[in-house]
């Protein structure tokens, strides 16, 4: 066979394999969506339509709104806390820096259930005054901070210190330099952190499940789980799960269209 033919076959196989694996990864999502639009009519026949989505609107939408609000608040806190911390870790040298960073990293690697359990112990025993919405937010902020930290560190490393030095020599104080020079340059990197925290906190489920007890808040994913354990696999549950995934997907697609994958590539993507 000619080399060009082998190359063509190689390309075909390559694309085919990657496509096959991608489809396989998307199977749960597709199954959920299909199930969500397949429902049975009163006379017993099965049909396809969007009825399940409308039916769940009333009861489900408040939960979605709660999840969205939690995600947004968590993002705001983590951005405010994470950017200065990342700046300190990248631009300054001080003893114990490595150890500190490793310690902060550890937060991310503890399995969800362990973290969740430890939180309710703490909430019932120590933080009795911090229950409710803000208790929830505090826990989420602590849990996801590392994500913002990692993306910001990558963003700061992208930006050459010579811009900040230049601004300083031109007469700008630290604050002016930070807001007028550093922030615009790390902006895109920070946006990657915002995206990741949104997607992960909006859909977070284990910690929310356990935090439901002290804070009495039920987020959307927890609602889905409760329904599943109660009623197995109805189209309504599928619709709820599909709605959450579709919202996440929409946010991801919009982000990728505007910013692309560049800033996710030091953190979660290759």
């Amino acid at each position, binding site marked *: 066979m000619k080399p060009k033919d082998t190359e063509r076959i190689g390309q075909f196989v390559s694309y085919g394999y990657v496509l096959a694996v991608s489809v396989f990864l998307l199977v749960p999502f597709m199954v959920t969506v299909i199930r969500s639009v397949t429902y049975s009519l009163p006379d017993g026949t099965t049909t396809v339509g969007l009825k399940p989505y409308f039916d769940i609107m009333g009861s489900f939408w408040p939960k979605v709104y709660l999840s969205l609000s939690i995600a947004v608040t968590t993002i705001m806190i983590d951005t405010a806390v994470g950017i200065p911390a990342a700046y300190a870790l990248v631009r300054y040298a001080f003893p114990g820096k490595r150890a500190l960073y490793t310690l902060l990293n550890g937060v991310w690697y503890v399995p969800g259930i362990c973290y969740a359990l430890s939180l309710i112990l703490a909430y019932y025993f120590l933080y009795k005054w911090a229950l409710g919405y803000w208790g929830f937010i505090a826990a989420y902020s602590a849990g996801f901070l590392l994500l913002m930290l990692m993306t910001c560190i990558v963003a700061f490393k992208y930006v050459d210190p010579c811009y900040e030095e*230049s601004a*300083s*020599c*031109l*007469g700008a*104080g630290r604050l002016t330099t930070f807001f007028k*020079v550093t922030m615009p*340059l790390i902006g895109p990197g920070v946006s990657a952190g915002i995206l990741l925290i949104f997607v992960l906190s909006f859909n977070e489920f284990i910690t929310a499940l356990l935090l439901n007890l002290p804070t009495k808040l039920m987020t959307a994913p927890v609602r889905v789980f409760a329904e599943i354990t109660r009623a197995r696999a109805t189209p309504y549950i599928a619709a709820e799960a599909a709605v959450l995934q579709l919202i996440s997907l929409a946010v991801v697609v919009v982000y990728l269209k505007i910013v692309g994958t560049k800033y996710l590539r030091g953190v979660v993507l290759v």
Partner: protein
Amino acid sequence: MTRILAKDVSKIYGNTKAVYRVSLEARDSEFVTILGPSGCGKSTTLRMIAGLIRVDEGRVFFDDEDVTDVPPNKRNIGFVFQRVALFPHMNVRKNIAFGLKARHVPEREIRKKIKQALAIVRMEDYENRAPSQLSGGQAQRIEIARVLATDPDVLLFDEPLSNIDAKLRDELKFEIRKIQRETGKTMVYVTHDQGEAFAISDRIYVMSQGIVDQVGTPTELYMDPSTPFVAGFIGQNNFLVGHIESLNSSSGTGTVHSDGIEIRAHVPDGLKCGDKVTACIRPEDIEILPEGKREPGEATKARIVESIFLGNTTRLHVDAGGTILKVDLRGPERFSYLKVKDKEIIMSLKKCTVIRGHQT
């Protein structure tokens, strides 16, 4: 119109002395250059003068004010970097306005100053360009405009032409000199390019391995190198390692013996008989004496080993008693020695500089 003085400044990283007890002075409106190879500490010294790096030892003065503990944004300096540091997210006008805004200059003044600055670097039409649309040379000019707009007391340029093409470099260095003369600002300039330093500086500090080897005007450095490093770094040199054979203290002359070659030269103060010295003689200072003309004590025999024609120069490699010396011939004489080999010649090594120590 400010005098810069760095007194015994040092910067030590762990066990490495990046800069050690360096003293540098730039007088009013003087163009001072720090010259040296990579890693010698010249950029570090400049950054200490700017305040970008904290000084470990020593003090920095602008006129008579001690600015050692003053942060860079309060020192009123104009720092130009090696890499283009124009803010990529702002166009040219906003870049230049940045420093003015930081100093709270009123809006009307800002517009005027931007035009003035661009006029000095002859780039008036580039106000609305983005940095990504500028070539290397253009970007560097805009950076100069940006620092000039803020009317700094001193100019500190860190190898600004390193990343520019050779031809443009030639043009730009004279432009920089012209701007400095016209604005009258004191300049401390850093470069590793000896030709560049010589072309535009009033005085040069030659640094190596964290210390200053020698300070002087280009002529002084060229004619009277005081350390083996300077002799080797500035221009080309032949090095004859040997010792002082005899010395006439009253006239300051003596003879140096090196591997079978005897050289009569002026010996600097402080050296005595037997001291290890290096005799440096530049290839263009070696004279080939015609057959008949020979003065006692100054003729050295040699044999031409190779002859290379370089256009405006003919370079000869000659063997003088085991040591290979480089001889450069300029002018019409150079044509007489083309493709010559194994010819015996007599040279005069009169214009030798003797320095203490051995150059390896």
